[in-house]
């Protein structure tokens, strides 16, 4: 079975640019969450989508947005990139979050 897949795996962007990160959940998983993990810290919640609707938003600026498509895949968009946006971005999916979430390997974003 395919796990949670994220693309790209690595990305280098310049300050002020825009970036789109993609996530494909495990088949049958309707919930997709996004987390930002700064080096040496725990992941911080950004967004959660369930059945294509936003169900939660973390304490991130409006430069961050996301959406979930009819096939339950998801995109995370970040506008006007700042150096501080450099991090590992993790996507997680679940059938029912009660049993935990399955994570992808993440996208390493570097802003220069």
């Amino acid at each position, binding site marked *: 079975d395919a796990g949670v897949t994220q693309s790209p795996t690595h990305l280098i962007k310049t300050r002020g640019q825009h970036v789109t990160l993609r996530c494909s959940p495990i088949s049958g998983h309707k919930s997709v969450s996004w987390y930002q993990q700064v080096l040496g810290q725990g992941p911080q919640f950004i967004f959660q989508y369930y059945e294509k609707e936003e169900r939660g938003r973390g304490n991130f600026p409006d430069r961050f947005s996301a959406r979930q498509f009819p096939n339950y895949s998801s995109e995370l968009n970040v506008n006007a990139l700042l150096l501080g946006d450099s991090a590992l971005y993790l996507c997680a999916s679940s059938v029912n979050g009660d049993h935990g979430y399955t*994570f992808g390997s993440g996208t390493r974003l570097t802003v220069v």
Partner: protein
Amino acid sequence: AQTVTQSQPEMSVQEAETVTLSCTYDTSESDYYLFWYKQPPSRQMILVIRQEAYKQQNATENRFSVNFQKAAKSFSLKISDSQLGDAAMYFCAYRRRGTSYGKLTFGQGTILTVHP
């Protein structure tokens, strides 16, 4: 707001020995889940063990077990017969129960080194 605290930035253990990683949390909820995740250098978060707060029995998964003290809001992970492959960053996480969705709140992590 819920918070999760891991007070041990780093721990080390000899291969085949036992190590315990600590985690405390703060919540006003009575029904929730607690998780331990492992993150090796490959970056992927791997679920190690899960505990339901309404169950008094401590969860176990092979060499991994937890000591869940609900009143003390403590959730430690014990790794028995440590193996080199256990070396990773370990995160404790909390999730409120009651919906089919809901964010995970993570601690800061503990780096575990396993010495041969």
